[in-house]
């Protein structure tokens, strides 16, 4: 296998057919065989029925995004074949239910068909019908030349906690599927998933999991969250692990309560967070400014989906950038960071907790559906250098303690209720002690104090944008968030193109970014938004107007093919 080659396998079926779990199992087989993976899921906002699909791209090289083409399709229903037929490469493999007698037209000439009596094998193995997915997986493992033992282990792990006879029946179903393919279709497909000589253990982890893990590792003490696609999995991970690690997760009655509970816990001294998507953040905007005004540290995760209103709940968009940067009335220091993949989400979330405490203001970490739900393979994240910074606090009892003391940095030491000091956390404009005030001098002093924290943050903590690819390039792509993945894949095909990845959105790295952009020969902004919000922000902050834009807003990720096509057309027209 050529190191740079990647293969794409899709598993499709109805919701409730075990598509997602089969995909996860497959991706772990690939990782345990020594490959890197990227998992991309598409699913409607439904529990049963509808069309679900998971795509695993695997390669010896790092994989950063989904691709449009499919090399191997596992179809648990006919719809899967019909919907994904246009994506199939020539001589792609298709595993499907033999007994259904699908009319597949001329597919047998363009592809390699592997009909298997999936349901029958599942039934004869004593497993429920849903185990058809493992029968198909067994056959696939055979066809791609992977080790069956890996699948057997993973079935046991996937069904851990279930009755042992059920686990064994599923394993038997998978094994029968494997043997069936071995006998009937030996070497019917290239053995592209043979175990590599050296296999290093890697995680298969998505953005939501990475964020929850980051919070736990960073000393999270309190989280209150209301469910919302595509970020609910953050709460699931936090809920499942709270007793073990000692923090509290509480589901609130709505997002307004979620953010206010987190603010209350933070005010009382707990390292706190909440998490939501755009619609939930709409409700949280009130609390966002409350945290800013009362100078209460808080980490907010905003996993964007396609809006406005209910929009497309399980699809992606980068449409909330301006909303997050400006939401809530008035002016206060908003620290806003954006992750481009699960690994960045992990480290930015850890950092967000320190920034929130250091600057005593809310910090938003933006992700989107393509990060939230997409797994990538990574070695365990190394955070041995991470130190917790709770910022300035005081436990000294002082009858003249001023919670909002005017200081050079704008940061004043926090005290906590119950420690003996009297103070007021106040959403009204306040004096240094926290009492209501409307005087010109108090107002000016407190506004200046709050806003200067952002200047300090820009000076002490803000990172410059990252550049991928050569320093001197014919084309410079500019983007943020999950678009990074598709861009990096496209860059593999264009050695003369580089990419500027913006992670800090507020404060904004004006100087370094301006320098990079002014040096660039040709700029293209790539954004999953109809109004190119990042390009607008860049123009506002740096004066650089990026004229060429590659935009989409159909809920789907940027595929490397589309980006590569644009690069090629620019290069040929130059």
């Amino acid at each position, binding site marked *: 296998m050529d190191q740079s080659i990647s293969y794409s396998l899709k598993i499709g079926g109805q919701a409730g057919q075990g598509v997602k779990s089969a995909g996860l199992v497959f991706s772990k087989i690939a990782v345990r065989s020594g490959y890197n993976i990227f998992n991309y899921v598409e699913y409607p906002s439904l529990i049963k029925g509808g069309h679900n699909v998971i795509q695993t791209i695997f390669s010896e090289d790092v994989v950063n995004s989904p691709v449009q083409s499919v090399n191997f399709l596992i179809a648990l229903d006919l719809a899967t074949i019909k919907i994904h037929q246009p994506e199939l490469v020539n001589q792609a493999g298709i595993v499907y239910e033999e007994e259904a007698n699908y009319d597949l037209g001329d597919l047998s000439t363009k592809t390699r068909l592997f009909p298997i009596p999936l349901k029958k094998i599942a039934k004869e193995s004593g497993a429920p019908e849903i185990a058809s997915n493992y029968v198909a997986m067994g056959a696939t493992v055979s066809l791609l030349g992977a080790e069956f033992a890996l699948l057997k282990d993973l079935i046991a792990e996937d069904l851990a906690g279930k009755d042992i006879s059920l686990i064994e029946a599923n394993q038997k179903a998978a094994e029968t599927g494997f043997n069936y393919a071995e006998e009937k279709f030996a070497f019917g497909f290239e053995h592209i998933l043979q175990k590599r000589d050296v296999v290093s253990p890697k995680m298969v982890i998505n953005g939501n999991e990475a964020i929850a893990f980051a919070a736990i590792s960073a000393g999270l003490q309190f989280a209150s969250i209301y469910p919302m696609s595509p970020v609910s999995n953050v709460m699931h991970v936090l809920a499942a692990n709270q007793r073990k690690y000692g*923090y509290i997760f509480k589901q609130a009655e709505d997002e307004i309560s979620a953010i206010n509970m*987190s603010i209350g816990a933070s005010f009382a001294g707990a390292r706190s967070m909440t998490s939501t998507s755009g619609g939930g953040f709409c409700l949280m905007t*009130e609390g966002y400014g409350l945290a800013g005004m009362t100078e209460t540290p808080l980490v907010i995760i905003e996993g964007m989906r396609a809006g406005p209103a209910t929009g497309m709940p399980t699809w992606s968009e980068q449409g909330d950038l301006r909303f997050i940067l400006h939401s809530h009335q008035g002016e206060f220091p908003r620290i806003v960071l954006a992750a481009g993949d699960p690994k960045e989400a992990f480290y930015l979330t850890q950092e967000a907790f320190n920034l929130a405490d250091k600057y005593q203001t809310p910090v938003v970490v933006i992700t989107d559906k393509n990060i939230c739900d997409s797994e990538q393979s990574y070695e365990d994240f190394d955070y041995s250098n991470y130190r917790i910074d709770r910022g300035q606090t005081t436990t000294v009892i002082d009858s003249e303690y001023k919670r909002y003391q005017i200081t050079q940095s704008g940061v004043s030491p926090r005290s906590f209720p119950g420690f003996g*000091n009297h103070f007021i956390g106040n959403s009204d404009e306040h004096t240094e002690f926290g009492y209501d005030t409307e005087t010109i001098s108090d107002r000016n002093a407190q506004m200046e104090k709050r806003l200067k924290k952002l200047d300090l943050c820009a000076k002490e903590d803000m990172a410059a944008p990252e550049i991928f690819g050569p320093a001197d390039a014919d084309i410079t792509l500019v983007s943020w968030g999950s678009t990074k993945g598709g861009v990096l894949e496209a860059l593999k095909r264009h050695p003369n193109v580089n990419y500027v990845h913006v992670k800090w959105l507020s404060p904004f790295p004006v100087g370094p970014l301006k320098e990079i952009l002014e040096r660039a020969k040709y700029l293209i902004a790539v954004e999953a938004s109809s109004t190119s919000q990042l390009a607008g922000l860049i123009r506002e902050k740096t004066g650089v107007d990026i004229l060429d834009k590659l935009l989409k807003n159909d809920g789907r990720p940027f595929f490397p093919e589309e980006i590569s096509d644009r690069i090629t057309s620019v290069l040929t027209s130059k």
Partner: protein
Amino acid sequence: MTTLQDLATPITPNFCPGCGNFGIWAAFKNAAVKAGWDNHNTVFTAGIGCHGHMVNFVKLTSFEGLHGRAIPVASGMKFANHALNVFVFTGDGDCLGEGGNHFIHACRRNHNITILLHNNSIYGLTTGQTSPATYKGQKTKSTPDGNPDEPFLVSHLAVAAGATFVARGFTGDIAGLTDLMIAANNHQGLSVVEILQPCVTFNKECSPSFYMENTYKLPEDYDPENKALALAKAIEWGPKQIPLGIIYRQNRPVAESEFPQIAENTLISKEASVRDISELFTKQH
């Protein structure tokens, strides 16, 4: 020990002369002195409305948040440090209008906090619009032809929503209100003290004399642990027919007790520290 002097702030109350808030202010300070509430053991939150100004007049650590949101802030505080007495000051508009959802869910969950609900049946701070507790037919600035809506009966709503301590007091009876506040805080669970409070400026119907004439104290032999009776009493409202006192009381595990991670110590008693999550990583392999 707490003295009245300890509770004094440099700020003079700005309530209208004759406002019921003076009675609530006095009762709360008296209760703090009697029960020993101080900055080592007590915190309170407030919403927005005339009641919210209370943060300026009582020298106990407090958090004045947003309109309607005092309850979730208090719930978060209690999770973080359940050793604290946590009070919520709120009003009928704040708590039942903007914050109605939080109120019913907090009752249902039984956080161990005490809600002091200033009920003047009007929006006072915004100069006299109808509130969720304004009587049907009453003329206000926003209902010049008479309020078309039925009001909530606060105590009835609280019992129905699952609060485990519900009492009604009156600002004209500072001693009685003081005792109710202390009893409410002593109760393990979500306590609501509905405080009938005249707004002398904007609600002429609920005048001090109206409450003086029409309230009565629940008799000694009243059984607050009988929920059916409590619901009947809480719905009682009319001439000479407004009961005061502890309407309902029930023992039920508090929200905080559902978390074994804080069974021994408060959440914040252990400093936030970097956690080893290698086990979580390994599960993803």
